[in-house]
Each structure stands twice: as C-alpha cells, then as structure tokens.
C-alpha cells in the first residue's frame, strides 16, 4: 500500500486556544510537481464547558463569565451577553449607554485587529514579503533602531496598550471589563473620561492611518514580487489572493449601532442599515437581508446524537462518543443551509460590497493623508483579502471613534441605564460581531436563573466540520488546495523558510556587523543568534520521512484569526476518540 504523505502542525502558536491541524499532501502536476494540501482536518484541544456551568446561575453573572471564554476578545462576548439580557429584561438601553458600549468595543477592535495584524499573522506576512518592520524584533533595540527589524511589531505593544487603557477608563480594566449591565452601563460619561479617551485616540489613529494602512500598501506591492517568485518555482503566478480561498458566502450580524436609531434600526437584526457595519448575507456578489431564523446547526459529522438542523435558541447538545462517521466536537452552523465565512471580510462585503475606500483625515489637525482604496481581489476570500479587510475595519473604526466621543459630551447628564429587575421567566438573544466575526448568544431564564445558554461563535462558523450534505466548513475549504476551476494554492514547499526567503528578496542586504546579502541569509543569521534551532522554523516531518515547510497553511489558519477557546467552549466532554486521534501526532 502506498502511504499518502501527511503531517501535523501541533501546537499552532499565536492563536487563541489549543489547535492542531493534520494535512494530507500530494504532488501536483500543474505546479511543477510541488506538494499541495489535498485534505485537512483541524483538531481543537481544550474543553471547559461554559454552557454547562452557566446553568442555574444569576443571569447577570453571564456577562462576567462569558468574557472568560476568551481573554483575547472578551468584550464581544460581554456585549452579546448583555444584549441577550437587555432583550430578556425588556430593557432598551438609553443612547448614552449605546455610545459608551460603542466606544469600549471600538477601542477593543483597534487593540484586537492590530494585535492580529502585527503579532499573530504579522511574522509570516513579514517574512513572505521581506517587510522587516513586521518581523519580530529578534535583534533587540539595536536591530529595531538600525535595521527597522521588528519596529512595527514592537510599536504595537505600546499602541495596543493605549487602546486597552481606554477600555479601562470605561470598563474598569482590560481584559474582562465590569461596567455592563442589562439595559445599559454602570459608568457615567464625564468630561475628564471623554478627554482622556480622545488624548489616547490621537496616537492610535495615527498608528492605524499612517503605519498600518501604509503596511497594507507595502504588502500589496510586495505581493506582486511574491507572484514572480511563485511563477519561477511553481510555473504559475500565485499571490496571497490565491492562497486560503474560501467558500464565497459571507455572514455578518452587524455592529456599532447608531445610538438615536437603536430601537428603529438595531433591535431587529434584519434591519441594521445605519450601523457602522451592516447585517447581511453576501454570496458570490449578491447581498441578501439577514434573517436570524435561517441559522441552523447540523450534526451529521459531529459527536452529538441530538437532532440536526435546530435553531440555536432551541438547540440541543447531547454528546455521542464514537458516533459513526463523525470527526469533530464542533457542530456545523449553516445559514440558509450554506456554510458561511465570518469576520472582517464578511463585514466589509456586507456593508460596502467589493470596492472599498477609507478616508485618512487627521481627527484633530485636519490634515488629509489621502484615502486608501481597495478592490477585493478574490470574492471567495483569501489570505490577502482577509488581511486587508481587517486593516480597513480598524481604519473605519478609528475614524468613527472621535465622533462617538464628541457625541457623548451631549449626554453628560443623561441616564446610562434603563434599570429593570431580573425577570422570572424570559428569553433573549444578543447578535453582535466579534473582531473574528458573527457572534450570537441565546439565553433562557427560568425562575430567575439561567436555564439554558447557547453561543454560536465566529470560530464555530469558520472551523465547522462537514454538514448534513457533506459540504466542508469554510476553513476546511480554505486549507484544501485545488487548481481547477479556481486556484487555491495551499502550497507545501520542501525548501526551508530561509531558502524561500532568499528567493523572495535575494538582493536585500544588511550590515550586522558585516554585510549579509539575501533575505534568507539574513533570517538565518539572526535566528541562529537567538537559537540555532530556529533555522528549522515551520519545518515538519511527514509520515513518509520528508521535511516540509508549513508556512503557507499556517498563514491560512491565521488569516481566519481562529479562536479555539471560543469555538470549543460549548463542546461536551471529550472522549477517547479525540485522545486516540492525538496519539497519532508525533
């Protein structure tokens, strides 16, 4: 029997949570016989069981506890949860509360999108595009100063912190804020808080507009160079827009409501036309209005024997270890029967279509740095489009934050909460967007306690297994290479990261302390300095004993900004199957 080559990447670092992927590869005659991935399987490694221990608690505890699902983006969980409680308590928050919620979440988005752009996916992008500021600062302060190596990576640590300081001003601390309450917030707007927030917004705005957006332009330019390299190695021009190509369906619940139109535009999720990002389902160029009833969770390939196709508000979670054919502890959420990608790209497509333009007018100085425009390269989604969308999200929010902060001055003496007592029996839903995409919480209250709590989170949409009609989930599709009818080059080079880097920028040179030429040689030198082991970075051994380079699949995994802690929060007890599965890893 011929052994099909396969390998694992486990653990995948620089994501939230514990994830490994297993990839089957095959030599592809269309790509000069280089390897591409033919089948992928992702395995989540941690289960805590939030929905189980939320039961029987005071409903208001949920806003705190669900934040601990994910400490990287706790706020969206708090926001979804508090909106589910708003609905259950029949407490419509006053406009001041909506503004304060928008401000907290806006700064949370800036911190989170920048974190992903610079720390989580940045290192791979920096290496593949020979863009030194985005590579980690492995040569320390001197390297940052003299070579620009890691300068933007290092700068992020400061700017991310500034964004979180504003979350602390309005939320008490970050991670895990304290100031949300059903029907509003607990914190009063004051001039000093507004001013302290504006003072911090300015440098952040400048970082997003003048560093991040410029990095986007650099990535787009260098992508052209990357295509020349792939053409020489693979015989075909492969850019970052041909890597990680997704399913082409994009779902958004909408986020950042207009405070004064909250009741008329926001509360019905199928409206949401005035919010900064709209709700909707965008599929292959066609937009349709969002309908919450079309969300169903299918279980054919999941370890559950509960009925398939239920809406989350009535969903059941009954685990069945060893269920024949099943391979995942995630359910498969589908919208109108379709797998759907969620995230920044989904928000952009549903709000602006495929042609984007964002202004860069300094909020205080008024100086115009010129708009940034982008036309979606791959309408099915790709590493490039997801990354650019994330930066556009950040820029749009940075522009909007000053407006919200100034508006809040008009609400200084206005109420921040529409206080209601805990209802005896009620239910509610909170449909919101995390930075990673569509996020829904559904709560049922009985006798004043939580009877049922369900979350369908962004990473469940993106990392879902196959559905009842055997169609894979969005990330599974993106991690599976294909060449016809469209290109999705999940290319697995057999050369090292340094050799690949040398091909990308052979002429790049630095003085450290003597002249080193070639991007890969530079990388090799600096990595050896920290530890010679790093020169083997991203290399994995297949079951057939071959050394392969996992950079491309890692890039695809990270382009979805996966949050495994979120995705697996609802999984029921892990069974032997998962452990056995894991035993195959080396």
């Amino acid at each position: 029997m011929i052994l099909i080559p396969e390998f694992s990447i486990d653990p995948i670092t620089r994501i939230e949570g514990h994830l490994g992927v297993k990839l089957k590869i095959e030599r592809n005659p269309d790509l000069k016989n280089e390897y591409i991935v033919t089948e992928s399987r992702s395995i989540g490694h941690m289960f805590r069981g939030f929905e189980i221990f939320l039961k029987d608690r005071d409903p208001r505890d949920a806003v705190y506890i669900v934040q601990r699902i994910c400490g990287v983006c706790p706020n969206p969980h708090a926001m979804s949860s508090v909106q589910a409680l708003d609905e259950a308590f029949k407490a419509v928050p006053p406009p001041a509360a909506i503004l304060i919620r928008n401000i907290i979440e806006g700064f949370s988005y800036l911190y989170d999108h920048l974190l992903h752009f610079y720390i989580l996916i940045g290192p791979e992008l920096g290496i593949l595009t020979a863009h030194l500021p985005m590579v980690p600062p492995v040569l320390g302060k001197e390297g940052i100063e003299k070579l620009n190596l890691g300068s933007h990576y290092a700068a992020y640590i400061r700017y991310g912190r500034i964004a979180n300081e504003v979350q602390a001003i309005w939320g008490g601390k970050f991670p895990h804020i304290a100031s949300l309450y059903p029907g509003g917030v607990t914190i009063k707007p004051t001039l000093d808080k507004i001013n302290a927030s504006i003072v911090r917004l300015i440098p952040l705005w400048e970082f997003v507009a003048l560093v991040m957006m410029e990095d986007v332009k650099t990535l787009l330019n260098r992508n052209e160079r990357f295509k020349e390299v792939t053409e020489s190695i693979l015989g075909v021009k492969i850019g970052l827009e041909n890597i990680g190509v997704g399913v082409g369906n994009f779902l958004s619940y909408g986020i950042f409501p207009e405070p004064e139109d909250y009741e008329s535009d926001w509360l019905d999720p199928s409206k949401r036309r005035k919010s900064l990002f709209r709700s909707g389902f965008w599929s292959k160029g066609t937009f349709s209005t969002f309908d919450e009833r079309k969300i169903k969770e299918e279980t054919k390939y999941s370890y559950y024997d509960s009925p398939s196709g239920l809406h989350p508000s009535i969903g059941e979670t009954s685990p069945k270890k060893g269920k024949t054919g099943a391979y995942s502890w995630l359910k498969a959420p589908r919208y109108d029967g379709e797998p759907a990608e969620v995230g920044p790209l989904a928000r952009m497509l549903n709000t602006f279509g495929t042609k984007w333009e964002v202004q860069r007018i300094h909020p205080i100085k008024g100086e115009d740095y010129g708009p940034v425009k982008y036309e979606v390269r791959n309408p099915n989604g790709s590493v490039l489009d997801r990354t650019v969308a994330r930066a556009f999200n950040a820029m749009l929010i940075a522009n909007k934050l000053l407006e919200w902060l100034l508006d809040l001055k008009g609400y200084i003496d206005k109420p921040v909460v529409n206080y209601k007592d805990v209802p005896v029996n009620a239910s509610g839903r909170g449909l919101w967007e995390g930075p990673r995409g569509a996020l829904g919480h559904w709560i049922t209250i009985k006798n004043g306690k939580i009877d049922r709590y369900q979350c369908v989170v962004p990473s469940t949409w993106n990392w879902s297994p196959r559905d009842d009609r055997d169609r894979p989930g969005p990330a599974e599709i993106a991690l599976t290479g294909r060449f016809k009818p469209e290109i999705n080059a999940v290319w697995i080079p057999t050369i090292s990261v340094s050799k690949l880097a040398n091909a990308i920028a052979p002429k790049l040179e630095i003085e450290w302390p003597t002249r080193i030429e070639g991007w890969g040689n530079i990388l090799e030198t600096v990595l050896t300095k920290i530890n010679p082991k790093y020169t083997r970075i991203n290399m994995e051994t297949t079951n057939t004993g071959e050394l392969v380079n996992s950079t491309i699949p890692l890039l695809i995994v990270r382009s979805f900004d996966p949050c495994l802690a979120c995705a697996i929060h609802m999984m029921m007890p892990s069974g032997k199957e998962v452990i056995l599965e894991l035993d195959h890893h080396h």
Partner: protein
Amino acid sequence: MGLRFTRRDFLKSMTMFGVSAMLINKTEIVKALTQSKDYWHICWLNGATCSGCEVSFIQHTDPDLIDILTSITVGESGLPIALPDYMQVVHPASGSLAMEFIDLWKEAKEKRRILIVVGSVQNPGFCEIGGRDFRDLLKETSKFADYIIAFGSCSSFGGIPRAKGNVTGAKSVSDFLKEVGIVKPVINLPRCPGHPDSLVLTLTSVMIGVIPVLDTYGRPIDFYGTNMHQELCPYRPFYDRGIFITKPGDYKPGEEGCRYKIGCKGPIAQTDCALRKWNEHISYCVEVGAPCIACSEPNFPDGDTSPFWKEMPGLPTILNAPAEVWGSAIVAATTIGCAVHFARKMIKEKKER
C-alpha cells in the same frame, strides 16, 4: 545621571522591604537585572485558559514587554535576561519545533528555570498540547522547574473552569501537584486576569534572589496582604456613612456611594486593586460603578463571591471570615458601618411609611 543604584543596593532594599520595595523602585528593575550575569529560562504553559492572562501581562509598562525582551539583557550579549523558551501565545515557532523548545528549557541551567502556568488543570482528555495531555506536560515540567508561578485565578485556585457544575474536574496547579505527588511550592498570583504587576514584580524578585513572603493561600502578601473594603477602598467613607448605590448605573451624576448593596465583594477580597488599579493604573471594577467580584479569592466564582450583582449576606460572612483577615478593630469598624447603614435604612423606611 542620578545616584548609582547597584544591584546590591537594590537587593538590600528588596530584603528590607520585600516586593513592595519595587513599588517604589520600579524603574530600577531594569538596572538591577541588567547587572545579572546569567540567563533565566522561562517556560509558559497554558492549561484550561482564556489567554486573558497573557493579554494582561503585555499591558505591563515600565518595563514593558519589548523592554523586557530587548533592553534587559545579559551583559553585552544582546539577549534578554529572561528567555521565554516556550510561550504558546506569542511563540514564533509552531508545531514540532515549539515542542522542542520545552525540552530546551528543561535542559537549561539549574536554579534558573521558571515555570509560569496559566489556566487550570482538568481531568485527562480535556486539554492537549502538541499531542500530549496538559497534565503530563505540567507534571514533567514541574519536576525540572526551580520556581513555579501560577498566574491568574485558574492556575492559582481553579478559577472559572472550576465553577460549580463543571464536568472537567478543573483544579489549581498546587492541587494537581499534590495529587501526583510532587512536593514543590507554588507562588499563586490570582485575579482574573492576573495583574501584570504581580507577575513582573514577582519574577524580578525571584531573579534577584528574594522569595516573596506568601499568605496561607500561597499569595505574596505584598499584593494580597490588604483587604479591599477595610483598608483600601476609596468608597469606604460612603459605607461608614451608610450611603449606598442601590441600582447599578441608576443614580445622578456626581452622586456617589458604596457598592456594597449592588453586590460588591470587597469585604472578602484580599487584593490591592483599589490602590494599584489596572492598565497603567487607570481604573478598576469598583470605580466604574460595578461590584468587586473577589476574583482573587480561592472560591471565585462561587461561594461568597457570587451572584456577582447580589448583596452579600452581610455581617455573618464578615464575622465568619478567617481571623488573620479581620483584626478585632476592623470588625468593630465594620459593625459600626453596618449599624449606620441599618439605622439609616430604618429611618428611611419609617419616613416612607
């Protein structure tokens, strides 16, 4: 240039005052450590965690993460004194190479290996890293660790994953080590998430040879030696005068009050949040009109600490608190505070009638 503050001076001040010396001399951390002649090796393991503790850690300033990695270096080597051999959330390497770095840490010089754990320890099968159960990894690395620090409430006490009704058997690192027969002290730095100051200062203190004094729950008394409500809360005067917020957020601007009636668990919280605050010392839960949820305490999020928005049963809980927490004078003060509160409440009810 100011006075030269040598490592010896720093050490001396540390020995005299404990970790709290660094609350004053924080900017001296860099100087004191830079004179160290050797590397410290750090392995940062994630159990059942939300990664909030890592996010919290990178909010630290003076020095910040970049300073720690690029400025606090050993001699002229240019390499950071604290080498994070393995730290999942920010590690450059993934996959098999990442796992090798854990082995590298194990082989590092003796007395120089620090193990930092975030997240609780669950029954087998609930958390795996690189194909290995987290429990096995923790057991193995603990054997090599010269110092073990549990950062955040999950690794310190079990935290949120250990909430009532959990099905994973989540527990603290120290309970797990006991269970598997490893006798090693664990420095617990609870709070949800862990406070970055507590980690950076504890690390620094360990590196310059001063082991913090711990309370009965393994927490350094420099961070957990004060009671929020009794000793630090700026809203305490309202409590003593019986002025309370009774509905969250529902009070006039400028009006303030004690948060006890909306569920504040300050009276059972041994933390310095009110003083130290969070995110560059900007604010903390109580300041934004919310209750303290006592996330520093062993029974968080159950027992006395929840429901978060419900008033504590009051006096009995306070009187039943451990003796080392409550001096008789403190109890007297509390009793007076409550008495004033109840007296006012009765007068108010009388008026309303």
